[in-house]
């Protein structure tokens, strides 16, 4: 029974859903919900990035650029032009997808460090544009973003809501919303991974030459997954902007890009659950370490370094292997 469950295709998704919906039992103030909501949104972004990094083996150091574009498109359209949130999110995601496709075609021909450099540059250029187009984006000082609205119904972190007879405050409502978004993001990603596209991508990761020999159109698949991950980033950027209520060009900045890629690497490249864990750990650490004041940065760096030295495959895959080994030993001992 347990074994069969462990082999189910949707196993991870079910585990994640249980964790997400059980989590409110341990959250006891709006600040915790606040953090959990951000984690879910960031985790969904990283799940998208993982498709590119973990499965297709391409590095993007500019993903915050797409995240920021989505955030700003939403911010500008909803506050200056009175658009509703959903069309802004969708149109933003489509536009970002087109941008990603246009820049992706040429730069995905590059490999290794060159590819990293090119994506880095794309991120930088987007950040510079957001910084300088003061009239539209408010420049380096940022701009406010109104609450998330669907057909006049508003989801604000400060409102209060009623769901199936349960009284929810705004933070809790946002958390549930973000949790559902994360589940959908994971479900879509899992489906993509298990489809022929996913297999093609893994073949690209394994060996591009071999993939081409067996007839995989590597260029097409590479730009496809680049576009998909950019769309993930853009959509999540839009939600993030609504949730935060205020954005600055830092959301498109280099630091943020590095944070994303670190989450993927730390959590475990190619493991959807792993990168979610990576996002949670990296979002949580600064808050946990905040009490150490000056030592915060040192400890943050030390933790990252030790993890990478002793768990080079990332947190979750390493834990899984360790647990798997132990279980096998146990089984062997009994037999």
């Amino acid at each position: 029974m347990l074994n069969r469950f462990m082999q189910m295709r949707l196993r991870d998704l079910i585990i994640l859903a249980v964790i997400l919906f059980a989590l409110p039992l341990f959250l006891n103030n709006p600040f915790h919900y606040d953090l959990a909501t951000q984690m879910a949104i960031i985790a969904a972004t990283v799940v998208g990035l993982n498709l590119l990094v973990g499965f297709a083996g391409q590095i993007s150091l500019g993903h915050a650029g797409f995240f920021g574009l989505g955030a700003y498109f939403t911010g500008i359209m909803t506050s200056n032009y009175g658009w509703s949130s959903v069309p802004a999110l969708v149109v933003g995601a489509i536009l970002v997808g087109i941008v990603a496709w246009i820049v992706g075609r040429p730069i995905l021909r590059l490999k290794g460090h060159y590819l990293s450099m090119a994506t880095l540059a794309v991120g930088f250029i987007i950040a510079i544009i957001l910084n300088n187009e003061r009239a539209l984006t408010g420049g380096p000082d940022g701009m406010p973003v109104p609450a998330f609205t669907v057909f006049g119904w508003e989801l604000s972190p400060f409102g209060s809501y009623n769901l199936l007879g349960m009284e929810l405050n705004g933070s809790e409502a946002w958390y549930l919303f973000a949790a559902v978004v994360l589940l959908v993001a994971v479900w879509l990603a899992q489906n993509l991974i298990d489809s022929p596209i996913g297999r093609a991508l893994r073949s690209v990761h394994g060996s591009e030459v071999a993939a081409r020999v067996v007839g995989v159109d590597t260029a097409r698949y590479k730009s496809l997954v680049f576009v998909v991950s950019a769309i993930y980033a853009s959509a999540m950027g839009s939600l993030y902007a609504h949730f935060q209520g205020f954005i600055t060009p830092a959301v498109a900045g280099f630091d943020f890009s590095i944070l994303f890629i670190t989450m993927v690497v730390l959590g475990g490249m190619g493991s959807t659950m792993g990168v979610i864990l990576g996002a949670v750990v990296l979002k949580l650490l600064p808050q946990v370490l905040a009490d150490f004041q000056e030592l915060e940065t040192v400890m943050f760096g030390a933790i990252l370094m030790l993890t990478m030295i002793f768990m080079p495959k990332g947190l979750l895959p390493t834990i899984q292997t360790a647990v798997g080994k132990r279980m096998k030993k146990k089984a062997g001992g009994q037999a």
Partner: protein
Amino acid sequence: MLKTILRRTGKFAAIAAAGLVMSAQAAEPIKIGSFLSVTGPASFLGDPELKTLEMYVEKINEEGGVLGRQLELIHYDDVGNASNARNFASRLIRSDRVDIIVGGSTTGATMAAVPLVEQAKIPFISLAGAVVITTPVKEWVFKTPQSDRMAAERILTDMKDRGITKIGLISGTGGFGSSGRTQTLEVAEKMGIEVLADVTYSGSDTDMTAQLTNIRNTDGVEAVLNFGFGQGPAIVTRNYDQLGMELPFYQSHGVASDSFLELAGDSAEGLRLPASPLLVPDSLPDDDPQKKVVQDYKAEYEARWDSKVSTFGAYAYDGLMLAVQAIEAAGSTDKEAVREALENIQGYVGVTGVFNMSPEDHNGLDADSFRILEVQNGEWKLIN
């Protein structure tokens, strides 16, 4: 038997009574929350601000606290990142449940926290400069630094006094420079000063000769103003000297520090800028009400930290003192009462200036709180 019971009850009663008295004496501390950019690119703001807050909270506590209660400073480092600032503001409000927030080193960090603060209805004194923070007035948000608009007004007034009506403007493209540029253009139009040349440079530029040559070649320019931050203005100043430009030259309050003098060296000779009196504490006239406050702050800060005092630390000093004064006036930490008290503070003499708050003005300073200084023989000289 009965005796023992009686004795025990007596003891118990005594302990309980003592406990009650104790708990009444050790009243809850007043929690002052703060998020500052102590590390990262804006650390030159956050570092002196934090030092100032720590030092004066200590001092106030030694002197018996506020309303008989001790102050407790809870602070986080936002690393100059607006979304961190927002998270820490959320933590301060919702998890630490502070009574008032004094913080927000940069405009971005402040503005990111504003929606939360307004919603949670908690008094917030920002330490960042841009005019958007208190214009339009937000019910719960106050700030201590003068806005860039006042700096522009002060500079342009000084120019007018010297009979200058046509200027060239060179500004940085960073947050400070571009906001300053917008304000300068607006104020200039109001005051009837023509901006004949308007050029910009980016933060990483290492030579601004081209932009300055452009201004020099513009006919009719009578003075040059540089609005910028960091090392850009120092380079502009050096280039200005190298080009042998003789026109009166102005810098903004963004570079009003001793380290700017070191960077710019001899080429800064003769330039003017609006600044906090903190740069020239001893040359203030004796009848200046700020003189003593400024001298004391400088002496205390430099004795405690063994480093040069900075105007940014002074913003935190004023923020903390305004908070303390408001809590004392309100007689409690009731948020609405403190907010109202803050709004009604009149004539508080701070290091940055004399504050006169009102429901329409949550900054409370006017352009005169800037002093115009001129560099003479490598030192700041008070002009007016």
